[in-house]
């Protein structure tokens, strides 16, 4: 069990992430990641293997920054009009996960709901987030974020904004 202060800090960190995404500050969002951080959205429930099983997204900082530029500068066709989102994060449970290069590490689980509005279209996503976080000074950084969509293996329409 984490002390209430750290628990609260982690919750606030997740809320900040949601706010950055909702306000379209994707650069700010990317800064929450470690230089080697990974964003992973599996294509199957319970998927553990990102190499032999295709993922919806399996990207590290290098590729994510291309994705972010596409969102911000290049205005991909699929982003016209720019979608607006509401990311809701809840049921946040964090536990200590030892030390990582001298910094405290944490494993965090949360549920999420995200509603994406684009023009007159509305899409609803939900599922579980799992994070590997490390503390860096006062803040946290994401080493790994796994986004397990409840319907990861379903038929999908194109996805635009990170969840």
């Amino acid at each position, binding site marked *: 069990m984490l002390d209430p202060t750290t628990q609260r800090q982690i919750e606030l960190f997740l809320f900040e992430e949601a706010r950055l995404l909702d306000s379209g500050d994707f650069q700010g969002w990317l800064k929450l990641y470690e230089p*080697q951080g*990974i964003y992973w*959205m599996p*294509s*199957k429930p319970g998927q553990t293997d990102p*190499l*032999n*099983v*295709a*993922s*919806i*997204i*399996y*990207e*590290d*900082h*290098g*590729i994510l*920054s*291309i*994705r972010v*530029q*596409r969102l911000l*500068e*290049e*205005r*991909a*066709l*699929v*982003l*016209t009009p720019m979608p607006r989102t509401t990311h809701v994060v809840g049921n946040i449970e964090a536990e200590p996960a030892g030390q990582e290069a001298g910094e405290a590490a944490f494993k965090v689980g949360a549920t999420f709901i995200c509603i994406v509005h684009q023009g007159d279209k509305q899409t609803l996503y939900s599922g579980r987030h799992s994070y590997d976080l490390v503390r860096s000074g006062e803040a946290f950084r994401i080493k790994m974020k796994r986004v397990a969509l409840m319907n990861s293996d*379903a*038929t*999908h*329409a*194109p*996805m*635009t904004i990170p969840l």
Partner: protein
Amino acid sequence: MIEPHALDIPTADDIRGLVRPDHVHRRAYADPAVFQLEQERIFGRLWIYVAHESQVKKPGDFVRTRLGGHEVLVTRGEDEKINVLINRCPHRGARLCMVDQGTSRLFSCPYHAWVFKPDGSLSSVPHRQSYPASFDLNDPINHMQRIKQIQTYRGFIFATLNENPAPLLNHLGAMTEVIDNLVDRAPDGEVEMGESYFSVEYRGNWKLHMENAADIFHPSFVHASSVMPARKAPANASILDQDQTREMLLANGFGFKEWEGIQLNGLPGGHAYMTNIYSNGVLVQKEADTIATQYRAALVAKVGEERTAEILGMNRFNNIVYPNLIINAQYQQMRVATPIAVDRTLVRIYCFRLKGAPDEMFHRSVRFLTTLGSPASMIFSDDIEMLERCQQGLSKDEGPWVDFSRGFDSDRRDANGMLSGAASEMPMRVQFQAWLNYLTAEAA
């Protein structure tokens, strides 16, 4: 689903009125009656890819897929034979199997517990004594409906609702070469379908996707939003994939110069493919690529240097097998576009493992699948956006004609079919010529 005959089926003359040598009427994309005729005469008569043998290795293995307007199960029976069965209980019509794949020695209908074997025959019914004396377990009327015509080419299973089809090989023609090439790339001479695939649905007619796959003109425009950031990104910034994703995004950035060497090929029957694409671009093997070197050595060990050079030298991109299959042997990718309604299409995107090749080759192919076919793909999502915008425009009766004239004056013909440069819309003209022939053919 619209009941057959609910719409006035267009006559052959109606259909002829929709296709000009270099223009097509918007009704080809937007008219439900034309769609119904396509379901009958294209998806109901041609050989349609249904599954790969590696998905149904053992008796009882099955996959659920679509054939024409039907949902079907492709199964392997106890006798090792492949079956294609309509997914419907013959008793009172309930849909039987509710999962996409699996293994089951028996299919039992949960409603009144009729039990079927993987070949569709009726194995038992409970409380046999309450059925009439004449009720016969062996009567085909009590069996899951079988699709009789099934043919396999090197592991690729095709079926047709046509009771009297010409052989599969006639339909495939020169497109067998790309299936051969995909399979021959495996040092063990066999490919296996990867366990993961994507299902993406878009709000547009199925032909839009097939045209887009033959369209070399669009990438530099449609995919600019992923090409530009990939150009700005430093090489090898990613630790995950040896720069593969960035290079794939970059590859769409070819312009007028890269078009020069590319040749488009259109075949009778509506098939098309491209040659010499990416031959001097970014996706060429690099000197220091140890995985590719190991893989090549594995292939050489099995088939020799000369044959290896021949196999790996075959450079045919986006092989489009009419009506709805796209194969990419170099990257072991495959797509199937299944029409759901006149304005709805399901695209399934798969990849293959080359048996006998290093595991990392398969990881690459999985990576291609994600980069090119995931619903979150930075490439595919922009394609879909354009397909949907086309459908939105074509659904209204505002100017009937779609233009396919680009390259019309410079297309050539040889003994095999049509040839053109990259900028030509020849493949779409070839597709529509075939479409016209299929839709106006009275008898199967």
